[in-house]
């Protein structure tokens, strides 16, 4: 994991500079070793690279890829300080953990003490939280270096990372050799500039950051697919853990009963390492499970013959692209050929998932957003005729149409006369959806295999032809049910589309069976050999960075 990443970052040294000692080709023996998660730590330990060097390279990469708009805030100063501290620890021979000195990024809906937390909203522009989210604190406690806060849809409401106040995130694959070679610009004047594709969302900034090598791992959040969807579009691993396994304290909520901090990495092993550092009971979040969590290393599965893989037929959804369908079948065959039992299963209520989600999501949004009234923090309107008029103006100025629309419909669903018909019904349907999974897993299925998205990433100009609501309904369709049921699910990058864009498949596991889920995902990852992005960061209108060879990133 981090070994590959290290190599990538090490290779990214500006042209002209001689490679440093120990960089470039991993030394023999070391490269072949198992437990890739410890590779970068090992390199750090041995002094082949220092945390500060690592941090500086990531920071300069962030600058050279600024046009991706992946980051809202880059915390250069604090990151370098953290790297310095880490360096001291390595010098003393006392790193805190595998993550010590590893640069990471965090979606901008997690609270970070001293670093702006905006949720990509006017409402929280300039808001500096006095505390760290538990997950952020855990990463810092283990020595990770926080590079900055990543872009998203406003308050995580969206599936494109296009609807935040800081503008859309661009998919790094738009600038890959793979995409450029295969996509034909409609006219010469466009020159690829209008051809760039979206990252998916709402954790698009985190997915882009990991995909473009600016950090080794990033936190996203996942309420209806917000981690897995952009992971699929950006060709990275996106893990949504079981609800209750990781603390939500400090994650600015979208839907409390479905939100989970998500993990975005470049390989499954990395996801396991980060999961191990985050999981477990948090006294500050009453919905986390009390049981102790034991971090695990993933075994290299050699025999999948005891596995039973379920293929839910309902995921053959309308609008599913033929290439994804083909990829899905191929993956199923891969398991079958390796001796696993592959069976078609049915999750009959999944098709109600999206409409049910719209009610529950809107209701919780209406409630959660009530606190943004301009009094204690965040934006406050100048309107001061009365408290009520100040509230109204603050909320109109602070929230975008998507947020306001959900608040409005949520309050409608919660009205006394509507509560039974909407909210209660949606809760009942949610139970049915969850029960479908219980039944399937109860019948002996270990893991479900589904597509993550209906197709590869869409060009931005195409994407914005539909409104946020329509897009969310389409894009969450394959990921949403796992949130309804609280189950762990992971996107594994699987292949490239005809246009040279990433395609991913999703594995859905049983509650708290992350180890099994990730073990299978790792096996699968190894089989499919997803290609590394050939990022071509040319001199860009937005960035003034020097030309870099694409080879730098391979």
């Amino acid at each position, binding site marked *: 994991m981090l070994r590959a990443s290290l190599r990538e970052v090490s290779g990214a040294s500006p042209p002209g500079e001689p490679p440093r000692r120990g960089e470039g080709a991993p030394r023999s023996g070391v490269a072949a070793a198992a437990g890739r998660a410890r590779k970068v730590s090992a390199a750090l330990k041995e002094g082949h690279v220092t945390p500060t060097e690592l941090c500086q390279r990531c920071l300069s990469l962030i600058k050279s890829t600024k046009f991706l708009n992946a980051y809202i805030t880059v915390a250069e100063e604090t990151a370098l300080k953290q790297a310095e501290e880490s360096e001291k620890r390595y010098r003393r021979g006392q790193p805190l953990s595998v993550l010590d000195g590893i640069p990471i990024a965090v979606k901008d809906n997690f609270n970070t003490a001293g670093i702006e937390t905006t949720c990509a909203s006017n409402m929280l522009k300039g808001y500096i939280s006095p505390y760290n989210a538990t997950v952020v604190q855990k990463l810092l406690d283990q020595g990770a270096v926080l590079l900055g806060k990543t872009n998203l849809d406003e308050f995580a409401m969206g599936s494109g990372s296009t609807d935040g106040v800081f503008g859309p995130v661009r998919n790094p694959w738009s600038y890959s050799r793979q995409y450029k070679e295969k996509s034909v610009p409609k006219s010469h004047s466009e020159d690829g500039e209008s051809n760039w594709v979206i990252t998916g969302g709402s954790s698009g900034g985190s997915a882009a950051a990991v995909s473009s090598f600016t950090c080794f791992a990033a936190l996203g959040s996942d309420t209806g697919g917000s981690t897995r969807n952009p992971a699929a579009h950006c060709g990275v691993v996106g893990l949504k853990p079981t609800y209750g396994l990781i603390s939500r*304290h400090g994650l600015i909520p979208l839907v409390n009963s479905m939100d989970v901090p998500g993990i975005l990495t470049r390989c499954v092993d990395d996801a396991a390492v980060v999961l191990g550092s985050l999981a477990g009971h948090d006294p500050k979040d009453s919905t986390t499970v009390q049981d102790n969590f034991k971090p695990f290393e993933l075994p290299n599965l050699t025999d999948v013959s005891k596995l039973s893989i379920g293929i839910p037929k309902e995921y053959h959804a309308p609008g599913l692209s033929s290439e994804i369908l083909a990829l899905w079948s191929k993956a199923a065959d891969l398991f079958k050929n390796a001796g696993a039992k592959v069976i078609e299963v049915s999750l009959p209520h999944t098709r109600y998932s999206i409409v049910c989600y719209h009610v529950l999501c809107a209701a*919780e949004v209406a409630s959660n957003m009530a606190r943004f009234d301009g009094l204690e923090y965040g934006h406050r309107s100048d309107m001061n005729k009365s408290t009520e008029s100040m509230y109204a103006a603050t909320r109109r100025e602070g929230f975008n149409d998507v947020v306001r629309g959900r608040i409005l419909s949520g309050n409608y669903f919660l009205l006394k006369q509507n*509560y039974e018909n909407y909210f209660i019904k949606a809760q009942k349907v949610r139970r049915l959806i969850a029960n479908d999974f219980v039944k399937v897993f109860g019948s002996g299925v270990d893991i479900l295999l589904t597509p993550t998205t209906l197709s590869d990433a869409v060009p931005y100009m195409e994407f914005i032809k539909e409104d946020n609501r329509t897009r969310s309904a389409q894009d969450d369709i394959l990921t949403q049910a796992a949130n309804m049921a609280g189950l762990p699910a992971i996107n594994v990058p699987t292949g490239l589309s005809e246009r040279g864009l990433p395609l991913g498949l999703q594995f859905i596991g049983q509650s708290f069976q992350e180890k099994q889920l990730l073990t299978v995902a790792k096996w699968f990852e190894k089989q499919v050999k997803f290609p590394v992005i050939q990022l071509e960061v040319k001199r860009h209108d937005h960035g003034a960075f020097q030309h870099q060879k694409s080879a730098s990133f391979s």
Partner: protein
Amino acid sequence: MAAAARGCGGVWRRAWQRGAGGPAPAPRGQRAVACNARGGAVPEGKSGLAPWVPVVGLEIHAQISSNSKLFSGSQVQFAAPPNSLVSFFDASLPGTLPVLNRRCVEAAVMTGLALNCSINKKSLFDRKHYFYADLPAGYQITQQRVPIAVNGSLSYSLCIDNKMSQMVTKTVRIKQIQLEQDSGKSLHDDTRSQTLVDLNRAGVGLMEVVMEPDMCCGEEAAAAVRELQLILQTLGSSQAVMADYEIQRQIEELENGGTILNETRAFDSKLGCTVPMRDKEGKQDYRFMPEPNLPPLILYDAKSLPANLNHQQVVNIDWIHERLPDLPSVKRAKLVEQYGILPEHSFTLLNEDGLTEFFENVVKQTQMKPKKVIGWILKDLLSYLKQHSLTVKESPVSSFLLADLLNLLEKKEISSTAAKQVLAELWKGEEKTPLEIVKEKKLELIQDQKELEQICQAVIDGQENEVMAIKAGNRKVLNKLIGLVQRETQGRSNPVLVKQLLEKKLSQ
């Protein structure tokens, strides 16, 4: 921030009228009808067919006695500087989550048990939404659907026609007890047209005790609330500093035939009255929904207690039940039985915080019979304290000093008149013992019989007419002579002995 403490009690949200034809909640703004303690004497309804019967239900918010707030670690403390007891959660900073305070749960269970409720082993939390400056999250976490305790009852006594000797016992059903958060405080500055918010109280745990509309008038309601207050104080689950003002106001309002709006009122200690807080019911739709950040609250009993769970992590209903202190009704019965005092005296003893303990301490330290001690406690001590607006704890005379004094009286070293004089000195709080005062003021009874005989003789000698009258058979006049001897001795003579001496001399 000015002090604008809200009394935590006496919220009459449900005062409605019923016609004889069946229950029908009155629309807001209709007149409530006054009644007397027996619930009779009611004006006729407009139809002229049947009399109106007033019905009183109560929802009482009692602040839970706990060190920290219901869902945060902030301290609970009275009169702290504004906004000094506010955690990130209390200020509703984005991303913060509620964590339930075990102590508050225990207090609610205790209260539920004391009010004969069934304790729900699984209860739920809900959000109740409304925009208000002192409600930072825009919603209050409460227990609307499945509260922690349901279906209880509260017995209370009240006297008929203000006669302490005629007490009747009544019962009001308790619908439910729910845990919920208190709000902050808003102070409106009209001159500068701004509102100041103090969040110290925001998130403090409340128990809302919902009573069924079983009461028929303000007096019943007041008696029920008073009994509830005593129970809460006995349990220590709440200090239950109720706003008697509010109850008084509503009683007056009702008795004046005024209107009781469905509203929550706040007690302003400066104005000495309550003021409307906010329109409570009206057309407001609270858009209730389940609180998603709190799992169901699970309580255990001895049977269901899982062996593998840490006892610090669970609340055991049976454990709390076994440790319930004597409730006021039991305490009263015990006082009556143990000390032979009148039932109404036991009410008075319990009604004043600390008075029972004071009484029992005096009894322990004196040979005087409890029946006599109670007179000194109720007539002398209590009326003095009331006159000077003091609590029992603030009494300048300790139970030890009073017992000392009563012992002097009991040993016939001083007369009761002298005892009252000593007590008057003791109130000054000059740290003198009763005996010192007796000595200083020469109040001890004249033990020398000869001296007393001489004084009696002198009185007889000086009152020829009276002596004649007595000898003629008018025995009443003897009292005048006794009084004169008392005056002569400045109360230092034993009236019984004086009477004997006078009678002896007059019969000679």
